[in-house]
């Protein structure tokens, strides 16, 4: 367990040393969210209707952007190989790296989402639900993304491929997340879908670390 936190700490330290990598997905997320009202016009009802979905899609795309660097540099400088050779289980080490990715790339984005929701004129209940669904749903995006990032770490120009691999798998998270945020904005109860979203996250948490570890071993092969 301590090795898990050691990996997180190390990765966080690395991330804060290069803050531009940290800021880039976040700025991208904000810009994409700004583009929707610009493209759709100022009709408040329309913006309210598309808001939760638009913010969720933007979060998904921003996640993809940050996933590209998840294993790439570690693969290039050989530290991924060292992780694989260490006596600790590789799945735990990689789960630590994924957790660090979530903390660095997803949490700021989740916290910013309610603010951006103001631009779509989403009522308070909807903003709250948006925060909640993103908080529960984004770990799954990081986890699924870590599988894709591990599969493509050894390939050049893999960002497009990563998107093709990961986006279809993210469909359930997107549906439950965006739709329940939307339902909440319309004043409905969303306990059921939130539980399902949590269930998906637990499932991803238990299964994907093994897939990621297997994928890293294949990439290192």
């Amino acid at each position, binding site marked *: 367990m301590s090795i898990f936190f050691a990996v997180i700490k190390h990765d966080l330290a690395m991330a804060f040393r290069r803050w531009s990598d940290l800021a880039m997905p976040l700025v991208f997320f904000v810009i994409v969210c700004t583009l929707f009202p610009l493209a759709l016009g100022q009709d408040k009802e329309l913006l309210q209707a598309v808001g939760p979905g638009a913010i969720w899609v933007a979060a998904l795309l921003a996640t993809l952007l940050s996933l590209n660097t998840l294993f790439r540099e570690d693969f290039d400088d050989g530290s991924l190989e060292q992780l694989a050779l260490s006596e600790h289980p590789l799945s735990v080490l990689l789960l630590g790296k994924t957790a660090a990715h979530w903390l660095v790339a997803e949490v700021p984005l989740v916290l910013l989402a309610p603010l951006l929701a103001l631009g779509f004129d989403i009522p308070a209940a909807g903003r709250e639900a948006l925060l909640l669904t993103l908080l529960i749903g984004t770990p799954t995006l990081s986890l*699924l993304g870590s*599988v894709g990032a591990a*599969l*493509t770490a050894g*390939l050049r120009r*893999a960002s497009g*491929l990563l998107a*093709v*691999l990961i*986006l*279809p*798998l993210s*469909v*359930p998270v997107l*549906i*439950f997340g965006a*739709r329940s945020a939307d*339902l909440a904005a319309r004043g409905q109860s969303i306990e059921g*879908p939130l539980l*399902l979203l949590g269930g*998906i996250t637990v*499932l991803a948490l238990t*299964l*994907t670390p093994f*897939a990621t570890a*297997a*994928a890293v071993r*294949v*990439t290192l*092969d």
Partner: protein
Amino acid sequence: MPSVAYGRQLDAIFVLSMWNWFFKLGSPPHFYRIATRLEPWLMGGALVLLVIGAYGGLAMAPPDYLQGDGFRIIYVHVPSAFLSMFAYSVMAVASAIGLIWRMKLAFCVAAASAPAGAAFTFLALCTGAIWGEPIWGTWWAWDPRLTAELVLLFLFLGYMLLRQAMPETRQADRASGILAVVGVVNLPIIHYSVEWWNSIHQGPSLMKLETPSIDGDMLWPLLVMIVAYQLLFIGILFTSIRTQILLRERNTRWISDLLS
């Protein structure tokens, strides 16, 4: 006691012969020979059944009382949709077997079923859209089954693109195998989520692409078509597996004997 020992011996012989059969089937040269021999029969059988099924569906089945003759698209839509899922399961199961037991032939099967599966998925989508136009009044409705089929197409394409991007066959096999297994775990969740998503904003009641209340004259051509598609899929699979075996075994003795 001797009878028990005799029985055990028989058991052992049976297990050994089963194992032997399995082992031989798993050996690429043996499978290559079997596939070569069976392939024309599969393709021929598929062709005959396709003609019978299409004739039965187009000419002999009575028109549906709701959808009239429009329902006849069922005879090409449902088998395509069925086979697309079947092909994905074959791909995932074969990938899992390959990953667990490091079996080369299993990876050949997985790699071979992807393009055929993608073709069936594409057909299911297109025929679904063609069916939707007269029945729903629109080419594309976000019907849960069509949507899930669309995601399935993306999964097939991702699998094939990942294979394409990896230069080394061994690595491509294992990487795409992991993707297929992750995808098959995800598939029921995708289905369920799409159904839930559809149920929360039920529009004006659409007429579903349901199997219409079906009677015998309508049913048998459908079953014939499904069997025909199965045979065709296995035929395509065998051809494609032979290509995969050739690529993987190109430096072995039996391949040079085969080709010279």
